[in-house]
């Protein structure tokens, strides 16, 4: 028997044990009694590739997700949520009844001085067939008005950055739960055989608050945790061979490891060894696909210019282009973090700079996905962890910023089965509270899973005696969004 035959035999046997279950009599019964895992959950025992693509609960509208996370929380009032009334009452003290029962960050500052309403200084105009409002800060995004759909008056649970980011990503303000990318790759795997299924890209002056907890696999096996790409050098840690190890030596090394592992497989009969052999083969392929992925050499000049991408430079623009290249290669969930939106003190130059950094590349990503036919099965989400208050905050004299606001913020989605050019939900004239459709972060998660063919109430993992979900005990699919 050759090694290949041996491997095939073990693969078949494993497949039999871990997947089929049906028709195996006692085994199947045991499996049902002891590990009655829900549908779409991977079977116990490591599958040959835990990230292997698998069907969801029903046919999917979207295959991939690109989540553009604006870390620090952008001000909806300076970008998308146009409030003439707020401008009219600019600088007036906020009526007490609007503040009653609400909790804000930095509450102690309110005790010192009654907060005042802050009308935006930015010019707004309507764009596209949809007539959606955009400020002058996002001219490029305004140009894709008819490709995107706004959700306004979205609410979240916690008014501090770390816990709120955690909530946006894991459905819980407590650190340590699996993130949405982990849930999704756990549920349906990834189409890519030589790249991680859940990739995290970062840009901006610092990393996002909370760090690794935001893309954690929580209690799910670590195969599902997000893999942060580095902005310089190898995108994936330890992707390059050590110095002095030639490509041939590396190939020879992996071949030798394989032969010796197969010898051990014969000796002990542990099918886990077959999984390890498969892991090394994928690792070997990653060493080729990784460098190819970040090489922008084959991108046209027009494409690079559209994004404003410069090969070799760490930037949001490069990450947007990289995101397209990742979903092109079948990577299931790509998350971009761009930092420094926390404008407490100044909605002037600092906001102009960060919007300039994201405006053109974001629009380019949507256009590029669309022209390549990728937008229809790629869901793009643009969101912060919460929004900002209608009242101003004065930290330096002469300038004004805004505090954290969790009751009503704005995000947008595009592609992946979302009906374009709409606005769902809204806020009152001062932007304090939602009017119309109420939408919460759990609803967004439920909707995202639905578009990927997953029922958020059935995508569960048993931990500490309880079936956990991304949406906890909440979540309503936002049906109005769908094409």
């Amino acid at each position: 028997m050759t090694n290949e035959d041996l491997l095939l035999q073990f693969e078949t046997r494993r497949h039999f044990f871990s997947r089929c279950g049906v028709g195996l009599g006692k085994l199947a019964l045991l499996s049902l009694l002891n590990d009655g895992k829900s549908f779409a959950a991977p079977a116990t025992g490591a599958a040959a590739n835990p990230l292997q693509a698998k069907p969801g609960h029903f046919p999917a509208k979207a295959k991939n997700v690109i989540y553009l996370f604006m870390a620090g929380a952008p001000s909806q009032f300076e970008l998308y949520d146009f409030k003439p009334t707020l401008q009219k009452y600019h600088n007036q003290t906020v009526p007490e009844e609007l503040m009653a029962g609400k909790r804000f960050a930095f509450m102690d500052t309110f005790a010192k001085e009654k907060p005042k309403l802050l009308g935006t200084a930015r010019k707004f105009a309507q764009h596209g067939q949809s007539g959606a409002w955009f400020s002058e800060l996002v001219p490029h995004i305004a140009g894709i008005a008819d490709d995107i759909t706004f959700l306004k008056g979205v609410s979240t649970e916690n008014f501090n950055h770390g816990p709120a980011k955690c909530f946006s990503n894991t459905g819980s303000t407590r650190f340590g739960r699996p993130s949405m990318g982990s849930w999704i790759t756990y549920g349906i795997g990834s189409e890519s055989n030589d790249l991680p299924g859940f990739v995290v890209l970062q840009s901006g002056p610092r990393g996002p608050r909370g760090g690794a907890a935001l893309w954690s696999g929580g209690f799910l096996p670590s195969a599902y945790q997000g893999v942060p790409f580095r902005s310089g050098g190898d995108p994936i840690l330890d992707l390059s061979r050590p110095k002095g190890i030639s490509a041939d030596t590396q190939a020879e090394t992996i071949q030798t490891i394989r032969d010796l592992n197969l010898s051990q497989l014969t000796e002990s009969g542990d099918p886990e060894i077959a999984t390890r052999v498969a892991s090394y083969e994928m690792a070997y392929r990653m060493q080729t696909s990784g460098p190819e992925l970040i090489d922008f050499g084959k991108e046209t000049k027009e494409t690079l210019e559209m994004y404003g991408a410069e090969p070799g430079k760490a930037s949001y623009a490069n990450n947007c282009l990289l995101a397209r290249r990742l979903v092109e290669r079948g990577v299931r969930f790509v998350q971009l973090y761009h930092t420094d939106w926390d404008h407490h003190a100044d909605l002037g130059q600092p906001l102009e700079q960060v919007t300039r950094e994201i405006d053109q590349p974001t629009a380019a990503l949507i256009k590029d996905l669309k022209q390549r036919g990728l937008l229809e099965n790629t869901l793009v989400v643009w969101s912060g962890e919460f929004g900002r208050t209608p009242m101003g905050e004065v930290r330096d004299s002469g300038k004004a910023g805004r505090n954290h606001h969790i009751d009503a913020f704005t995000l947008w989605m595009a592609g992946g089965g979302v009906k374009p050019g709409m606005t769902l939900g809204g806020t009152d004239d001062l932007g304090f509270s939602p009017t119309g459709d109420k939408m919460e972060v759990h609803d967004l998660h439920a909707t995202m899973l639905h578009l990927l063919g997953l029922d958020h109430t059935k995508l569960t993992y048993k931990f500490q005696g309880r079936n956990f979900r991304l949406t906890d005990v909440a979540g309503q699919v936002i049906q109005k969004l769908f094409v």
Partner: protein
Amino acid sequence: MCISARSLARFLAPGIVSAAAAVTLVAQQPAGTDAVTILKNNCQPCHSESLKSSGLSVATREAMLQGGNRGAALRPSDAPGSLVVQAMEQTGGLKMPPGRKLADEQIAAVRNWVAAGAVWPKDAAVSSAAPSGKRKGADWWAFQPVARVEPPAVKQTAWVRNPVDNFILARLEKEKLTPSGEAAKETLLRRVSLDLTGLLPSPKEVREFVADTRPDAYERVVDRLLASPNYGERWGRHWLDVARYADSDGYTIDAPRQMWKYRDWVINALNRDMPFDQFTIEQLAGDLLPNPTTDQLIATGFHRNTPSNFEGGIDFEQYRVEAVVDRVSTTGGAFLGLTVGCARCHDHKFDPISQKEFYQLFAFFNNVDEVASEAERYDFNRPILEVPTAEEIARKKAFNAQWSALSKELILYVRELAAKPRQAGDADPSKDPELMERVQNLRELRKREPKYTTTLVMKELPKPRESYIHLGGDFTRKGITVQPGVPEVLPPLQGEGKTRLDFAKWLVDGRNPLTARVTVNRIWQEYFGKGLVESENDFGAQGNPPTHPELLDYLAGEFVRQKWSQKAIHRLIVTSAAYRQSSKERPELEEVDPYNKLLARQNRLRLEAEIIRDSALSASGLLTDKVGGPSVYPPIPDGAMSVTQVAGAWPTATGPDRYRRGVYTFFRRSAAFPGLMVFDAPDANASCTRRVRSNTPLQALATLNDEAFTEFAEGLAARVIKEAPEDTAARIRYAYLLAMGRAPRPDEEQRLGKFLARQMEEYKSNPSHALELIYKGGKFSPEGVPVNPPPAKLAAMLPKDLPLEAAWTGAARVLFNLDDFLTRD
């Protein structure tokens, strides 16, 4: 089936009997029957005497007056002010019954009844769910006292080595299965060395054990390993997972925090085999012991390992409460094996733990003194304890001496200046250059004042905080006040029963049915991959029942009988025939016991994150075998620390600290060490009682390409070349002995030999590759060789052994990547 008087009246009224007769009929019912029946049918399914959802029973008037978590449900004669009416009317936050609304006339009946004084009908049989005196779920196996069990009789007595085997074998015999034979001696030694100390046996230890034919040769090894300080490092790490130990605050800012004294306390306590009852009491309440020692205070760091939020603009009370909740949940999982955290927002759905009982446990942990000042600002860095080392004390002493000497000199100088006669036009004496220099010197010195090592500890507020039920788990929604207490299904507290110390003692008083079971089960889990109760942190109704209930009780009983000695339990398990079995798969078992729950063989287990590193370090001979001390910074890939808001400093160790065991690696929660995380190390944001074992391509990349592993491979290569005879076959055998603790099989020896031969060719024909591999691409250079030597002359200039070293480094890389190396057989 009940028909209310009103519906009866309605039914009767239309012409069947006269209206007067109907009125008479209704009047015959005792007053209030109507309302009480509505309560019974609609409220009592949850609010019975036995269930008391949210603490409320509606079974009697008294019970309603007493109320539940939200206070009294009933205010006789005050219908609008009665919670029961408000809940039914659903005008406020509380809407009952859940998910529906009673008919208007039903609500009106209750409203009128309350308004009329809420007279309870004499013999209203509202107690349909008759209280049996026991809570529902109280008869669950885990709440019963640990049974005194005798090892069962078995047929194959020759296989049995100790009582553990009677239980395992009896079950196998019942299923008509036979256990596996003992593993090969080499396998057994490697297994027990890794399990007890997390390090590989040395070649000498392997040779000695194989040659030792005494009947108790194995037991001698076990005793040696249990006495090794490496035992505390290995088993301490398991406990540190439970304790969610880390070297940073967590949350948003995630600044470094000093807690390593607590880590060392755990390692030392295990090495001394501190009885588990004492181990528990000192960690949960060491500060409340009479005249606590410094060590007992350090031990209380267990519950100060909670993440702390230092983000600007937070509500401090919210995160203080989060930490207390974490303490309750962690205690529940670690000692009681119960998911008490489920009862934070509502009564536990599956186990008999009410929301009120959750907050009674909460009350034990709610009194930590984090309040820094009168202004009621919290400081999560309090209470803190200074724990100086002898060296720090000496440095401080020297500093103080220097400080007082310089201060004295300054005072003398000032006097001197003041004494000088002054005339108009003289320079201002306070601007005297020498004076200014002296003051400046003192200021500089103050900056260099040596700091003492600190550690976070527990300390009670003089007056306990008020604890109350958080309605829906939200601390801003106050329910009724609660006193400290333990769940009713468990034995009652002894003594006053009010303090953390009372609670800690209660956990380990020998009557608590859970603590001993949960602890021995977690120990068992590390030896077989799964606990006897697979859901090691959930012994409740949603958990798995034990595969061998009598064995669990035997071990738990033995644990208490052996005065809570963990080493005694380790010894009992690892000297059993069950543990010593071969792990080889047996096709006939796969059919009947695919998950090997009956243990007719051992399980192969992938090594934990730290142990993979430690094994490579011990095989290569590079290991710095120092126990304890501040956390260390081994090499980390570039950029690994910049994935979070505040990029952390990483002063990479260049000396011996580069080769310390994984348990000493500085652990930053938001940017944890990648080499550990890739192999499933927990993130320390919450207590972890069992690690997952995954098998991924990123792991392969780490052991293939990571700088640290290349360095370990070089170490192994150098050691093999130096210590083995000069002959490839002998070297291969020695390398296998070092890395796998056994000799290679002929096919393995041949395959590695073939690889080595090709590598020798490669490095002889490409000496620059060898130079790069061994000397880090020119970062270092062999003695006498220029950093960038001319290629043509390179071969002649290089040390003779360089190709050999490079080829062997390649072979060592192969060995470190084999399943056999990464797995405990």
